[in-house]
């Protein structure tokens, strides 16, 4: 089968790999029909995630058709069209039992922090991902969800991560009716977070980024106010001004470790790797939130340390909530929203590439060329 193959930072190629086999009675093999590239994949692509082994196939956002099921998978049949949440979760450990599927304790040998994730380096379990023609799906009786009749398949595709993550970011914000919510990052995740903030009753939504084409998009899509931090000298001061000098009720970090905008952070975080990526957006979020407010972090950081003003967090008495999204917990509600036409996630897809062209797709998405917001890879067999 064709699958992407990571060769080192900024190097991807598509190659023949053996079709995966069932390794556990609760596995399924899924033939991939669509797979996204995610901002999280960029952290891998940039070589910033330790234990990303050469030869890995990335891809944790995909939909497909069930090809084969293990002897203990009874809820799926061969031929079912499924969307597959990015978390690999057993459904029975103490974390899964509480709906914390992202932190399953039975799916990741290599780390005690996060649970297993498809195609997300050996830190997240060493599984191959879905940017391929076929993929092994462990605990197939828990994660994969049959795509409801009539649902557009690209809407289903974005239900595997991006929409739930934007929604989770807003949910963690503990938004109360009328709250001012500031979202850092107008990538796919930030766009969805801004859109979903309204569902929780936000009174005002402001998005900060530096890419005009993304700001233009989110302004209409969320809809919301959107500002370019390159034309603002000090984003924190700007937000104070915008909020009667008190700060925002809720700040969302939808940027993560690839942030730009602060030379020291970029130098120490991205060039010298003295910290686990650049924490510019998180720094701004902590300093822009109101005293007693909430900072919600979905942006991804490396496993070591980051420079953030934790003293200010203490002095301001803020609450910090953070997490990898437990997609399965949010799916029922989000499927409903999509089916009722309240949310239309597929509108953020700007590019579709043949799987063979993954190297170009990665480059375009990473360098933010051609007004790219969300790229999708399509294997040639479909």
């Amino acid at each position: 089968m064709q699958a992407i193959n990571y060769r080192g930072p900024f190097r991807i190629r598509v190659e023949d790999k053996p079709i995966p086999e069932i390794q556990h009675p609760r596995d399924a093999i899924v033939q991939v029909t669509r797979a996204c590239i995610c901002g999280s994949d960029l952290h891998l692509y940039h070589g910033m995630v330790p234990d990303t082994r050469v030869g890995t196939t990335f891809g944790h956002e995909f939909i497909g058709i069930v090809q084969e099921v293990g002897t203990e998978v009874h809820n799926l049949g061969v031929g079912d069209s499924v969307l597959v949440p990015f978390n690999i979760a057993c459904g029975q450990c103490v974390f899964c039992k509480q709906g914390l599927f992202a932190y399953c304790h039975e799916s990741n040998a290599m780390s005690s922090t996060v649970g297993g994730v498809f195609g997300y380096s050996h830190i997240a379990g060493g599984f191959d991902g879905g940017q391929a023609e076929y993929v092994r799906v462990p605990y197939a009786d828990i994660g994969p969800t049959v795509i409801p009749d009539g649902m557009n398949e690209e809407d289903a595709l974005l239900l595997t991560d991006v929409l739930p993550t934007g929604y989770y970011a807003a949910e963690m914000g503990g938004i109360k009716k009328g709250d001012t919510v500031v979202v850092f990052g107008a990538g796919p995740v930030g766009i969805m977070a801004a859109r979903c903030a309204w569902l929780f009753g936000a009174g005002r939504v402001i998005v900060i980024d530096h890419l005009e084409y993304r700001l233009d998009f989110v302004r209409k899509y969320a809809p919301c106010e959107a500002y370019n931090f390159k034309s603002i000298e000090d984003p924190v001061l700007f937000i104070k001004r915008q909020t009667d000098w008190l700060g925002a009720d809720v700040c969302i970090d939808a940027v993560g470790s690839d942030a730009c905008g602060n030379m020291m952070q970029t130098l120490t975080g991205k060039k010298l790797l003295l910290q686990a990526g650049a924490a510019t957006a998180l720094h701004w979020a902590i300093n822009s939130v109101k005293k007693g407010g909430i900072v919600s972090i979905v942006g991804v950081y490396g496993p070591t340390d980051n420079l953030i003003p934790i003293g200010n967090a203490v002095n301001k008495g803020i609450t910090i909530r953070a997490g990898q999204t437990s997609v399965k917990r949010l799916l029922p509600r989000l499927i409903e929203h999509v089916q009722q036409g309240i949310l239309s996630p597929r509108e953020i897809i700007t590019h579709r590439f043949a799987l063979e062209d993954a190297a170009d797709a990665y480059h375009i998405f990473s360098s933010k060329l051609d007004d790219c917001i969300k790229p999708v890879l399509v294997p040639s067999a479909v």
Partner: protein
Amino acid sequence: MNTQKINYQEVKGWGIDADPLNEPTYPMKEGDAEDKITIWERPDQQQASMEVLTSNERATIPAVFGQTIAPQGISGHIRRYAFNHSESRYRHWIPLLIADRINEIEGIIDDFKHGKAPHILLEKGWRARWKLNKKSVMKKAGIGLLLAVTAAVLVKRKPS
């Protein structure tokens, strides 16, 4: 700069998921005492068919794990060393980062061993770069050329 405020009452779906009870520990506080078990009925154990490094912060290997790329070569030795240390230590992470860089070189050697030279420019998406960002390609090519010429001149100048 757009300063136009949005009239939220007109946004589709406004407030439909507002939840006054949503508080910081959600959903940790969900579920009742019996969900707070520390020992659970474990799924069947997957059998390992290759070396799987396991965090030393775990008592057991999880029931399911990825078996894609076993630690190999020099990078593999370094990864094994890293996994003797907890995720709280630089002794875990720095060796892993070093192993990744070495692994990249091993990958190139491996390609040659299999009789193929890697198309590094294609792997780096230069086809797209050429199509969409000729300026950056020209700049890089220019810098490369300049460096090559400077090097050539310096080599020539060297007294023999």
